[in-house]
């Protein structure tokens, strides 16, 4: 393959460019969400996120002039700056919402009662009148200006700790954590014992059991919803965390057993035979030899199960219910999409809160994930 690349260097360039394009295409949507989560509601609805990094020209919300008046040459004067930052540049302004771009910067305009207002391109303004402003409503300025890129962490504060904006996302985060950790830990041990039996113990019906596990691997969990909900209601679990944990455990077991068995079968036969000859029982062989050696497979499954339970919507909706204080992140997101469809600052931030944990797990443990995928499907 190297020979090929060496022979045709123009092709190598084509490969580099195509891969760069492909990666950009795949990354673009996620980056959009991430960038949006750091912008204010105004910025999001005024311009696409891809322009967030360049200076923005746009109409600012109306600014009401304020300040202390002073006397100067027999006139009452208020002056100051419209903008908080120095980098904002005014390109047009007006005093009515119907004509927001009526005047150029650095022009002086006469308003009612002899008031004179002048706005410079830097945003400096000067309002003067022959009589005091005391008790008067000062004019509003509509400014069209170029503002530098600006990012904020405010959305995250609102969504995680606020009471109105993204109400319940912080709670939902805890709920998701509460669902996924036990649902990841419990199936591992149960599956490991079963996998050992299926890999290293001789008994009639073993092949049949393995076939059954492979078959159950693909049974859609849609079939399990109603019967299990009825079962949970009958035995008194009802809708709640216990039900979700049990359901996730049941649904995760086929993959766990399958992955672990495939891995354990590949362990060196000598070690296990030798231990048997030395008089070790199956229980000892399992706990002292097979379990420690199977760590990579255990890790693979744990990552799968964690990602799956963290990202799951259906099982949580059905077995945990739709009470407001019990919603997991995915369910909360679906609700937000319905109720706050246009408020991208809340949606984007909530969505990012929900995907950040899986992403961290993914990048930290990618090796095990890939290994698990390969063991799970190529065999």
């Amino acid at each position, binding site marked *: 393959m190297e020979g090929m690349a060496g022979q045709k260097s123009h092709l190598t360039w084509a490969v580099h460019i195509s891969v760069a394009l492909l990666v950009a295409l795949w990354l673009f949507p996620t980056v959009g969400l991430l960038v949006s989560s750091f912008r204010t509601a105004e910025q999001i609805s005024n311009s696409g996120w891809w322009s967030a990094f360049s200076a923005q020209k746009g109409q600012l919300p109306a600014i009401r002039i304020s300040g202390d008046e002073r006397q100067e040459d027999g006139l009452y004067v208020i002056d100051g700056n419209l903008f908080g930052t120095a980098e904002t540049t005014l390109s047009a302004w007006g005093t009515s919402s119907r004509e927001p771009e009526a005047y150029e910067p650095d022009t002086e305009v006469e308003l009612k009662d002899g008031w004179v207002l002048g706005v410079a391109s830097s945003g400096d303004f000067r309002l003067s009148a022959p009589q005091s402003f005391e008790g008067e409503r000062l004019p509003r300025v509509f400014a069209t200006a170029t503002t530098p890129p600006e990012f904020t962490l405010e959305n995250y504060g609102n969504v995680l700790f606020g009471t109105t904006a993204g109400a319940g996302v912080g709670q939902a985060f805890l709920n998701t954590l*509460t669902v996924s950790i036990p649902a990841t830990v419990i199936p591992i*041990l149960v599956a490991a014992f079963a996998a050992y039996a299926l890999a290293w113990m001789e008994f009639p019906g073993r092949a049949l*059991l393995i076939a059954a596990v492979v078959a159950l691997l693909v049974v859609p969990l849609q079939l399990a919803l*109603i019967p299990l909900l009825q079962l949970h209601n009958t035995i008194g679990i009802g809708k709640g965390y216990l039900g979700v944990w049990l359901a996730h455990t049941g649904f995760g077991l086929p993959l766990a057993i399958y992955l672990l068995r495939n891995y354990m079968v590949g362990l060196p036969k000598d070690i296990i035979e030798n231990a048997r000859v030395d008089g070790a029982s199956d229980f000892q062989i399992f706990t002292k030899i097979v379990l420690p050696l199977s760590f990579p497979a255990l890790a693979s499954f744990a990552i799968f199960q964690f990602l799956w339970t963290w990202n799951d919507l259906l099982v949580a909706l059905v077995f945990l219910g739709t009470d407001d204080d019990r919603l997991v992140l995915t369910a909360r997101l679906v609700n937000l*999409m319905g109720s706050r469809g246009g408020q991208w600052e809340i949606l984007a931030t909530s969505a990012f809160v929900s995907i950040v944990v899986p992403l961290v797990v993914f990048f930290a443990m990618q090796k095990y994930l890939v290994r698990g995928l390969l063991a799970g499907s190529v065999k």
Partner: protein
Amino acid sequence: MHPALQAVLTIVIGLGGCIGYFWFSNQLFDKVLFPARGPNIGRNIRRAEMIRPWLFLFPAIFALGLYLAYPVVATFWLSLTDRDQGGAFVGLANYQQMLREAKFWEAIRNNMLWLVVVPAASTAFGLLAAQLTDRISWGNIAKSLIFMPMAISFVGASVIWKLVYDFRPIGQEQIGILNAFWVWLGGEPQTWLTITPWNNFLLMVVLIWIQTGFAMVILGAALRGIPEETVEAAIVDGANPFQIFFKIKVPQIRSTIVVVWTTITLVVLKIFDIVLAMTNGQWQTQVLANYMYDKLFRAFDWGVGSAAAMVIMLLVSPILVWNVINARREMR
């Protein structure tokens, strides 16, 4: 009790229970029931060896049976009963009712569309990405980034793509990249997700985006497993890179392609979250799993809902049989 505390307690009880069960049952076996000493030592060891596998397997078999095998039967039975008549047996009435509903046929049609497009596109993109990234120095980083959507939930992905498809009325700045691009090309902004039948494809894009990384990882490993000699021989014979790829490499990894294809097919058959989150089946985008969810938890019609679940089961079963046959062949 606070749920977090309950979670910790569950982990302790669950794990402790498992460890306790396995340890005590084995102890009971070795020390009390079938001790490996005394007059019956031979018989005892033989019996212990016969029963012990089932000791190891019991919790798993119990959970699998209760949570996966039993529901298949129970759902089938539910699909033959009517909830409003107190669970009376009604034969195939639910299926007949389902077959009369336009929404069901819409779901079937869309599911078939998904079945064709998503596995094909994901596998093709995955194969392309695997082949291209295999040759370059920063291939692993590229792979990581293409693989990344795999970690994102379907709902999270739906939010991400809903921003891409966002619509603002004409005259306003478009904040969705698709409309921004469309307007830049000279078109009028569109509410993409309401335009039948294209909205279906826009939903599929989300799943293709997620599944391509999976296909790439599996196919990449298979490509690397191809014997060098076959490729070298082709180079010597003067084959160009495209011929090498399509005539030498692809045929050698055909079985892996089939595995990837069927795995993605299984995901597609159960697709639910994306449709629920983005359109909830409106504008002719219904799919089977969402149709079933509608029936079960919005209309509370367990009969028809279960019938729809059985249809999904029916569609899955060829793959189930094929997987079992393959697994058995490998074990020989």
